[in-house]
């Protein structure tokens, strides 16, 4: 029996690998892979269920079992193309439209205002570029300096296309100045894009007020609500465009949406089969959309309860980390998403903190230059004007619905030790 399994595993591998050369190379590589201690350790961690503590929920979240269950039939039994006329197609279209309605409800929107996309990166691109195509004579954009790269880099690209972009400063907590925003709006301004809650530091923006200013001045308001949607109630009466991504709320990766308020001028940036009322072509990711609706159902259903619990963890983190000398909170103590807390530790570097915590099975992230592919510190931390060396020692802890009080306690047990260990290594001693 065992032999049969081994043989079939080997056959699977050779089939998957196809060419002989590949097979040989892979066989030669296999022992290296197995003797690689890091791989072995993570393998054993999984096998022996060494307690893994995932505190990087603003990067992505685990797909909830309910969500998996809701999606499953749409990979196998109900695989029809939602554009097809036969029963297969009609059934998936029906399920997809039901999901659209459910999601629209969570935004107090109508189903026709929901455009499904491949995620928030695409939704942000569609909002900005799509609005620009629809109003070609408006050639000025306003965003904050702490927008996600999918907004920031889109606007930087728009600059190369002859657009002018105003990058609003933020204060030390990450808030924009509303008077400055008001003053920046001109006749030729197309759109203002300010994220609802920041993904690195959690700071919230007053989207109702920002939207009201935009209304008054007759410009469009887009908000990237990726981190806020499903976490807090969103007052979007004055929002014209809003982006959501499923994988931040226990849904699958690769699916998101753009809410487009009725009568908002918007042209497609992806051309093809005229799906999504011609605003986004491409066969809809039906399992993903079903999953996003299930994730929204889940998140909205338990919103208050989860928010209260995670808010408690955040308070505890802020209080106990403040007791470690040479630390600071980056962001705002209260005007913040409850699932994100960002700290800086003097004299040590974030990537090494992440690696040390990982040894204890704790997953967090950092905005340190050393951890980024271009060796630049996080643009968000730089915009807060915190000293570069403090940006270097930043750590983002982001909780999720599955986070437990015990996990927070474990983090708080190891974190001071890790900080101490690295400070011993560092030439910069704190408090000497």
């Amino acid at each position, binding site marked *: 029996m065992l032999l049969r399994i081994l043989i079939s595993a080997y056959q699977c591998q050779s089939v998957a690998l196809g060419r002989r050369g590949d097979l040989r190379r892979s066989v030669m590589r296999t022992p290296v892979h197995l003797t690689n201690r890091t791989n072995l350790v993570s393998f054993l961690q999984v096998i022996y269920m060494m307690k893994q503590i995932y505190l990087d929920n603003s990067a992505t979240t685990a797909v909830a079992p309910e969500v998996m269950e809701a999606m499953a039939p749409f990979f196998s039994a109900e695989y029809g193309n939602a554009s097809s006329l036969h029963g297969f197609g009609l059934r998936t279209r029906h399920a997809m439209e039901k999901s659209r309605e459910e999601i629209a409800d969570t935004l107090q929107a109508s189903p026709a205002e929901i455009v499904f996309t491949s995620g928030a990166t695409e939704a942000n691109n569609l909002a900005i570029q799509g609005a620009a195509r629809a109003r070609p004579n408006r050639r000025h954009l306003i965003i904050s300096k702490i927008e996600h790269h999918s907004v920031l880099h889109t606007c930087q690209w728009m600059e190369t296309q002859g657009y002018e972009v105003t990058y609003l400063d933020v204060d030390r907590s990450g808030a924009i100045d509303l008077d400055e925003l008001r003053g920046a709006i001109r006749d030729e301004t197309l759109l203002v894009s300010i994220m609802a809650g920041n993904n690195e530091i959690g700071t919230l923006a007053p989207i109702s007020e920002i939207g009201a200013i935009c209304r008054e001045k007759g410009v469009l308001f887009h908000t990237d609500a990726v981190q806020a949607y499903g976490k807090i109630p969103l007052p979007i009466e004055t929002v014209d465009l809003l982006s959501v991504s499923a994988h931040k709320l226990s849904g699958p990766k690769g699916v998101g949406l753009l809410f487009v308020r009725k009568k908002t001028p918007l042209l497609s940036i992806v051309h093809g089969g005229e799906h999504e009322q011609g605003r986004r072509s491409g066969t809809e990711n039906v399992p993903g959309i079903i999953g996003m609706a299930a994730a929204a159902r889940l998140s909205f259903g338990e919103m208050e309860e989860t928010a209260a619990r995670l808010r408690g963890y955040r308070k505890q983190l802020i209080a106990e980390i403040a007791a470690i000398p040479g630390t600071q909170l980056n962001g705002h103590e209260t005007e913040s998403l409850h699932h994100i807390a960002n700290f800086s530790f003097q*004299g040590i*570097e974030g990537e090494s903190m992440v690696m040390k915590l990982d*040894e204890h099975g704790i997953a967090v992230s950092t905005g340190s230059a*050393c951890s980024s592919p271009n*060796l630049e510190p996080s643009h968000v931390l730089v915009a807060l004007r915190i000293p570069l060396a403090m940006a270097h020692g930043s750590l983002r802890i982001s909780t999720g619905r599955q986070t437990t009080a015990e996990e927070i306690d474990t983090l708080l047990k190891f974190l001071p030790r890790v900080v101490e260990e690295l400070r011993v290594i560092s030439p*910069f001693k704190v408090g*000497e």
Partner: protein
Amino acid sequence: MYTDKVIEHFRHPHNMGKLDDYSAIGKVGNIVCGDVMWLYIKVEKDEQGREIIADISWETFGCTAAIATSSMSSEIAKGKTLDAAIAITNREVAEGLGGLPPVKMHCSALAADALNEAIYAYLAEAGREIPPILARRHDRISKEVIALEERYRAFPEAEESAT
């Protein structure tokens, strides 16, 4: 992303800390991402009367790769004659660790530079002749340290302890 050797040195760094009784320090900063390393050496004569690095230690503010390369290069340099230590390259240090990700190669330069600076400081203090390669590298490194200090002006702790 990192080899086991890197992780091993990161977890259990060798020669870490400050030497009580050192002959010279090399202080370097890496302008690419703003990491800092201080390297202490104790120079003594061996039985043949050659000057060797009898003891070595370091303190590093930097990433996993910077800490691991600090550890590795101190191991390589320990017991070497000054001439042999000058000849240590960052490539050699990286190879000793089973390689580094390309984006992290510059971290290994930090350790090689610190060693260079410590030996430079030792020879300069003793009023000895500086080998041209050491002097050339010293010029480049000094410029980089100034650039780093500019960038880190807002970090008071760094300034205080650096002076």
